């Protein structure tokens, strides 16, 4: 048997989870003490255990929210549907939120999907590309009459997600024990989050169902650790537009539309101060 054929047979047995696959057992030599299915089973079991471990590491709060049985059923379904094609295991878990959205078993659970999206963003923020942040003083390089034409570029770790209401509360509740050990000054820690809940405040069954008025969250990396903050709708809109390359002046008009009667320029200026102070802005230039 050629090497290529042997490797196909071996891989097929691992992917199908069949340690008693006759075709591969026929070419395996007798082990010293164990039987051949037991030894082939080492590879079969290791494959699923390893992939499950990757998902465990990247979605710890989702496991807590769903409970062990449901989370493990999700993991099994994901592994069955997603044999890895990636050289680096780091990104094996990335598609879990989309898998849930596409799966009949999970697509009605908007809260779980939202939590998966949130945890994925935390993971992505952790090892996103580096870039030095600009301070607010950067604006002083431009004369005030140029400000309406200014555009901004943002840190590569910054992600915006729009999820079901209750996702942040679910995350805080699921990670409450972990947060008790963390530095209380850490960005994005439970203590800073408005409406942060104690672990027992919301029983899982009482989490709100999906609502059209969901949550909008920014996730990024601050001081090497992931941070997050819930955004008001107008800040979310402004940040989306700013990330898309819109100028300060254009965004002012959009914010004014959302908040009639307020000074859009002042409101956007507040946002900008916050974005600079959080290290989100890495470039300022006149928008094209």
């Amino acid at each position: 048997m050629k090497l290529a054929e042997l490797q196909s047979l071996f891989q097929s047995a691992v992917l199908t989870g069949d340690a008693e696959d006759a075709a591969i057992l026929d070419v395996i030599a007798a082990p010293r003490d164990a039987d051949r299915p037991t030894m082939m089973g080492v590879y079969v079991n290791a494959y699923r255990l390893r992939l499950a471990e990757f998902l465990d590491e990247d979605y710890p709060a989702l496991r807590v929210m769903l409970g062990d049985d449901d989370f493990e059923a999700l993991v099994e379904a994901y592994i069955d549907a997603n044999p890895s094609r990636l050289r680096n295991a780091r990104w094996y878990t990335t598609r879990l939120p989309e898998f849930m959205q596409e799966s009949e078993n999970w697509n009605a659970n908007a809260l779980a999907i939202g939590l998966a999206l949130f945890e994925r963003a935390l993971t992505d923020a952790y090892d996103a590309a580096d870039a030095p942040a600009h301070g607010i003083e950067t604006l002083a390089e431009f004369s005030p009459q140029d400000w309406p034409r200014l555009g901004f570029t943002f840190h590569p770790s910054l992600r915006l997600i729009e999820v079901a209401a209750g996702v942040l509360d679910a995350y805080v509740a699921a990670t409450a024990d972990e947060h008790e050990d963390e530095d209380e000054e850490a960005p994005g820690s439970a203590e800073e989050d408005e409406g942060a809940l104690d672990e027992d405040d919301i029983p899982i069954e009482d989490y709100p169902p999906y609502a059209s008025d969901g949550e909008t969250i920014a996730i990024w990396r601050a001081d090497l650790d992931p941070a997050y903050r819930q955004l008001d709708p107008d800040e979310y809109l402004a940040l989306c537009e700013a990330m898309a390359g819109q100028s300060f002046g254009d965004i002012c008009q959009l914010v004014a539309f959302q908040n009639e009667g307020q000074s859009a320029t002042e409101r956007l200026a507040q946002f900008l101060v916050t974005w600079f102070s959080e290290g989100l802005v890495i470039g300022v230039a006149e928008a094209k």
Partner: protein
Amino acid sequence: MESLPRLGYGLGLRPVYYDEILSTRPPVDWFEIISENYMIPGGRPLVMLERFRADYPIVMHGVSMSLASTDPLDLDYLKALKALADRVEPAWVSDHLAWTGVHGRNLHDLLPIPYTREALNHVVERIGRVQDILKRRLVVENASTYVTFTQSEMPEWEFVAQMAERADCLLLLDVNNVFVSGFNHGFDNNAFIDAVPADRVAQFHMAGHTDNETHLIDTHDQPIREEVWTLYERARRRFGDVSVMIERDDNFPPFSELLGELQHMRDIDAAIAANASRSAA
């Protein structure tokens, strides 16, 4: 043949120990990283790696090269690996005599090969190409295995020895893997140690394994077992003062426990050296 530096006694660099290493500057001569854990865009792992690199020699150890796969070499992976090597300037780069998948799939495991002339030709050719791409000599490790194949035409150690000579690569002798595979397949561990070409061995791995009575599994989550220390002594006598490190990847003990294992290694080596001196006198 060019020889690689003798780095002394090292440990695997794992995030769980980052803070302790930075704050205590423990008596560890060098660290080995899992290359793939740092083949990422940025963030804490790369920042920490640069801090450690400033103070310690680093060796890059990969798990995804899939040297024995019949799929084409993954040139994107090799390009990223070379970029990391250019950044880290490791003492050397290593990976395994194994494959990780075919048909574009990756099982994220180190899978066994038949020890045939066909497989040998295939692996030798690929190591040569990898060395050309990385522009450095590759260090190749014997993997622990749980099955062997009926069509094998030679013992593993003969395959490894021929591979090293023909590909002109260096070897990472994983002493625990020799023990685990020897137990599982019933071969003589000493024969393996004695057959590997001494001038090709650049590094040892030591690690713990799990004993399932009928078979052993290379889990890296236990202290090094006494029988593996015995095999280590034999390897040390044969291969001299090549660099050695301990792999610990799960069930992480206090860092002091790993330092204790390193000290045990130093004590064994000191006793061997003392014996050699007495014999010479």
